[in-house]
């Protein structure tokens, strides 16, 4: 079942063509991976499919999906100057969850991924890897149908990389669609999961079917 259809999408920034005539279908469930060299437009394409930016030309069709049913994990996430717990709570507050619901969701996530030791830590006391985990959990807490993930293996040591892999695998097993940008082939291979590869080069899709 189709979730997104991109029809001849182009994206310009300051008269510079970042994406050129992209045609693409993304199906429900499973993993789609956008790969390509630096500056090939991977993150721009991810943001465009999510809806953070509008295409300059072409059309993006979304099927059976409201905006609230997707969430985005950024390559360089920003955080509020509060605790690990509060940062997740804030995302849930913005999505309209009640205080009671927020506490239940966060405690369940923290228990599920065994992160009790991070719960009350201020973000300034978290390592780069722990911040990446927080960024992922903040998006997962929103219970998305589609998760957009920009460079999941960025700045991660081996332990946190395994943690992120296990969270991704658990999301995929829950039938959540993941659209991911990465240049880390090994990370994808280690996930050991069938995926659709979308290869970009200089703003063009080079494995168009």
């Amino acid at each position, binding site marked *: 079942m189709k979730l997104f259809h991109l029809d001849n999408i182009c994206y310009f920034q300051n008269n510079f063509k970042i994406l050129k005539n992209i045609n693409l279908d993304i199906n429900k469930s499973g993993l789609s991976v956008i790969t390509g060299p630096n500056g090939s437009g991977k993150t721009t394409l991810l943001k465009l499919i999510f809806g953070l930016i509008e295409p300059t030309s072409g059309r993006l069709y979304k099927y059976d999906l409201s905006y609230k049913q997707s969430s985005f994990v950024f390559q360089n996430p920003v955080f509020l100057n509060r605790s690990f717990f509060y940062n997740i709570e804030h995302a849930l507050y*913005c999505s309209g969850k009640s205080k009671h619901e927020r506490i239940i969701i966060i405690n369940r996530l923290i228990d599920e991924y065994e992160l009790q030791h991070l719960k009350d830590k201020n973000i300034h006391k978290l390592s780069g890897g722990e911040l990446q985990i927080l960024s992922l959990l903040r998006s997962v807490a*929103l219970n998305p149908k589609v998760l957009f993930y920009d460079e999941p293996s960025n700045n991660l040591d081996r332990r946190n990389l395994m943690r992120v892999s296990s969270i991704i695998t658990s999301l995929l097993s829950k039938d959540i669609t993941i659209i991911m940008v990465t240049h880390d082939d090994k990370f994808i291979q280690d996930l050991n999961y069938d995926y659709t590869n979308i290869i970009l080069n200089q703003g063009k899709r080079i494995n168009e079917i």
Partner: protein
Amino acid sequence: MDIFYEALKNLVEFDIKLYEIILLSLFVSISAAILSSIIAIIITSFLVLKRFVGKNATLLIINSMMSLPPVVVGLILYLLFSNTGILGFSDMLYSYQLMIIAQFLIVLPIIISLSFTVLNNKYMYLYDYLMSLNTSDFKILKTILHESRNELLIIFMTGLGRALSEVGAVIIVGGNIAHMTRVMTTSIVLETSRGELATALSLGIALILIAILINMFIFIIKNIYNKKL
């Protein structure tokens, strides 16, 4: 040195005349700073969150008004509220209410301009994250105000400091009337011209002490709050 001792004596002995002036000063300036902070936050929030034609021109005008001379503000208010002015019927000239309005007008562009920089930077920093949550403007505003609370407190203090130290406008619209509109700065001007240097110095010391006390208070509040995070 005698003047300095006499000035301290006036303060320590709780000279009623002196404290009446200090309290009125605090009341007028704190009222003006609170009022302009509330209005400034509303205007700044709109400027940060909304795109509209003439936004840059609006900011340019507000920034220019930061350097508005207080005596000009006082003069304009005087013309408006004097008996022959269009607002003369309100009978507000030489009242503390008009002094609050004068200080409000002087402080408002300063608070808008400074808080716009702070809130806009915070908004830009959190922009992608907040947009990805597809949340309401109210929740976005609440987030950026909360995240900028320390900087906004300092801006409030800057506004209060500006109001407390202002003399040009309040002397014109207040008239420096004893027991009615005499505040610290106008009183310092008067006492200096009369040669009552000890009284003038007492008020000067009080002004500095108030600034230190308010800053200490804000510092303590900030620390208590940050420890809770």
